[in-house]
């Protein structure tokens, strides 16, 4: 059984068809890429998968369970996490709090425990704090624990966002343009980091990315969409020489 399966998913916004008959099946422990020109509908796919949009047509199953009708936080609780194209951290909270909040859906205590500071509250908070510090340590972010994300360099903010996503202990990690806004030396670091996450956490990673260097060196297989229509799928090498893809990116004259 695939980890995530999309069957003939379409999405319409009013008269605009943002995505047409999109299908894919992801297995555990895969590293898959989704590419396409600007406005092709890539982020729409992620928004559908993470529960932000309900598909106009088609079926999405995650871990064998249909996700239609689930809210994003419920999908996250099933084991899916994502990062955003434009970083979305809680800028006025500390980095440590940002990580801690990723445990919000499995706190293990309620508001009443928080007010009365019960034993259950103490144990749960201790566990959350320990795990948060651990992930900051492994992601080499420990020194920034008390900082506010808005005061950190862009590359570090990206790492914090990744650490936060990993704190939810996902089985599937969605990365929406993780290399956007990074300079070339940062990009090399990011490629190593994603590979390391893939090996260390033994999860499935699905990424949207523009930079060919990232996609070609990481992904085992790729899908290409343009105007919401799937135009190619295959290994990075196959995609590179696919005439439809070249046409989509560079226009007819390039062939």
């Amino acid at each position: 059984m695939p980890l995530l399966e999309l069957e003939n998913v379409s999405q319409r916004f009013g008269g605009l068809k943002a995505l047409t008959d999109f299908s894919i099946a992801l297995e555990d422990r895969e590293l898959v890429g989704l590419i396409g020109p600007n406005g092709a509908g890539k982020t729409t796919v992620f928004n559908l998968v993470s529960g932000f949009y309900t598909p106009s047509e088609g079926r999405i199953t995650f871990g064998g369970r249909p996700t239609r009708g689930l809210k994003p936080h419920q999908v996250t609780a099933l084991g899916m996490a994502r990062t955003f194209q434009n970083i979305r951290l809680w800028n006025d909270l500390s980095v440590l709090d940002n990580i801690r909040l990723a445990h919000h859906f499995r706190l293990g205590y309620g508001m009443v425990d928080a007010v009365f500071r019960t034993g259950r509250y103490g144990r749960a908070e201790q566990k959350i704090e320990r795990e948060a510090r651990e992930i900051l340590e492994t992601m080499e972010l420990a020194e920034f624990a008390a900082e506010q994300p808005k005061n950190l360099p862009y590359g570090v903010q990206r790492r914090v966002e990744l650490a936060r996503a990993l704190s939810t202990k996902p089985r599937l990690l969605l990365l929406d343009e993780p290399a956007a806004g990074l300079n070339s030396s940062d990009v090399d670091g990011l490629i190593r980091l994603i590979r390391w996450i893939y090996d260390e956490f033994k999860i499935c990673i699905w990424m949207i990315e523009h930079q060919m260097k990232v996609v070609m060196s990481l992904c085992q297989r790729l899908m290409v969409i343009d105007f919401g229509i799937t135009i190619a799928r295959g290994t990075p090498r196959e995609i590179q020489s696919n005439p439809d893809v070249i046409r989509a990116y560079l226009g007819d004259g390039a062939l």
Partner: protein
Amino acid sequence: MRGHTLNIIFALTGLALIWSAHAGLLDNYVLTVLMFMGINVIFASSLNLVNGYMGEFSCGHAGFMCVGAYVGSLLSMALFTNSKLFGDALLPPELALPLFPLVLVAAGFAAAAFGLLVALPSFHTRDDYLAIITIAANYIIISIIENIDAIGGPRGLFGMKKTINAMGDFINAPWMFIWVVLITFVSVMILYRLVTSTCGKGIPAVCQNEVAAEIMGVNTNKVKIMAFMVSSGLAGVAGALYAHVYGYVNAQAFNILKSTEGLVMVYLGGMGSLSGVVIAAIAFTLLVEGLRFVIPFVNDLTHSLGLLPAGFEISQVWKWVIIPMILILLMQFRPEGLLGNRELTHVFPGLKKWITFK
């Protein structure tokens, strides 16, 4: 021990105040001002949960205070006093003392239930639109109460003070003052514990990036319900105390002007700063009371210096010129309030030895 130092300081201050009240060192006027200070602290710091921490603009907070004031008064009248409204007391007056906290809790729950009036629309509405809904909620609540003739309607409601008097007959102590001191402390404690827990940090997370909150597994609707209900519930408790201090409630006392007072205190202290808002509530109460003396003094002074014509008096109404003026100056020169969204420990790092807000 370290974490408790501040609690001990507060407890000792509270005890010292209560003792001096009991010993008659504080006259009635000072006691009343201190009690309104406590009520304002609860009112403003609970409003801060929504306006500061969650970043919504609630301008109908007094409505929830009104619900608490009426529910608390009616309960305490029905249970512990012989009144025209309810007839003989349902319980012997000796029980007023141990059961009074339950009356306050019930008032809080009733107000929290009315908080849903705002919490449920907040799932789909934000910012200005939600602000309008909060004003509407304020008016709905006042109108409902004003139109129930059985509980006094626009004439208001008397008689809850007998409950407090019954406590005094039982054990002689300044009970009203004790309750206000105690409940103020408990309310601030509840808010402090909530906002420092990971559970409660969902509230600023919703404020700072709702999309990220939802995606990272924070049930944003649940967080909104929690924030609105805790906030309105504590306002209800403040209302029940207010009614018992005054001995009289009238729905019009909780109109938009009262809500505005809460907003002034929150913006004075700094949105999202618990310590700032507590300080602001105390300062605001002192300011309002201080003007009661300063205005006649200025009036007499200007008249004796011949600066004002004989027929022109500076009356107490000028209070409502001076206070909004302070708000205007504040927004001009320090829009983030006294402490901004920082806590006292950021301004005076030395305090970190005694208390942490993280």
